[in-house]
């Protein structure tokens, strides 16, 4: 118990530093822009630390991209324009929700394909299962009764 308390205390010492590091204050001229900022910064991938979006990342490049994002939002750029700007520089890679093209077609289609394949399997299995369920023979029935009796008795 004491050890647990210590652990909580110690982790408490480090946690705030990590959390505060990515909090920046931007003054948005409207709540709508702020909402778009949060959506876009979570949808843009940090080029340096590849499994984080730019909202979560502390990398200098992520900070730069957040500034660019903020400035572009304030100058009235549309979401499409901002994404096009990022993609022109860092490639389709920076989008966590990439556009549908030749490279990403499979990615987009995969859930539907898997669903269809899965449904097909289930249907086939169900049909085959239905045929297979034959009534038990008299000896089998007897055996089951015996086993059940043994277990209960």
């Amino acid at each position, binding site marked *: 118990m004491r050890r647990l308390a210590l652990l909580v205390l110690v982790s408490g010492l480090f946690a705030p530093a990590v959390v505060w590091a990515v909090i920046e204050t931007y003054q948005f001229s409207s709540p709508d822009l702020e909402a778009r900022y949060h959506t876009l910064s979570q949808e843009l991938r940090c080029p340096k630390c*590849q499994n984080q979006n730019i909202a979560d990342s502390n990398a*200098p490049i992520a900070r730069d991209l957040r500034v660019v994002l903020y400035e572009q939002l304030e100058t009235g750029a549309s979401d499409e324009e901002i994404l096009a700007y990022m993609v*022109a520089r860092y490639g389709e890679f920076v989008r966590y929700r990439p556009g549908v093209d030749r490279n990403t077609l499979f990615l987009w289609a995969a859930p539907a394909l898997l669903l269809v394949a899965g449904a097909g399997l289930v249907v086939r299995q169900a049909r085959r299962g239905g045929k297979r369920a034959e009534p038990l023979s008299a000896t089998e029935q007897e055996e089951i009764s015996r086993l059940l009796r043994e277990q209960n008795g």
Partner: protein
Amino acid sequence: MRLKRFAPLLGFVLLAGLLYKGLSIDPTALPAARVGQPFPSFTQLELTSGREITEQSLSPGPALVNVWATWCYSCRLEHPYLLALAARGVPIFGLNYKDDSVKAREWLLQLGDPYRLNVADEQGLVGLDLGVYGAPETYVIGADGHIKHRHVGILDEGVFDRDFVKYFPDMGVSGSVGAAAGDS
């Protein structure tokens, strides 16, 4: 019916093959969005002379554009090889990326200056337009001012021989670059 028995094995082999291929793919390699395009336009100060330069100043190609900074440890490791390349006559332009210009000038004085000129990109704006996400990075720009190739990480002899030498046909056998590095 016979074939069906081997379906799991087939699935396993396919998956294993796919994953094995995945092992040899570098996950940090990014598609270079700017390759094939003209070098992004800019107007910045030159690091040592302080005069205004633009993308037109990065010519004639083919030439290297090396993204570096004094805060970048790998750049220090890379530096001697850049000096050797410059000594061999490969034109190298520097992009001093998000750096303190005073420190950068000191670095060039102390370690030697392989660059024809240096773009003082203190804010990282040129780097942003170029799609730079760290240092060092090295680009090849062709005689037409277009970006031909991008390399992320330290440029050394192995990388140069593999990916860069074809853009510099006049340089002759590149093996001697290493020899030049050894001499200096």
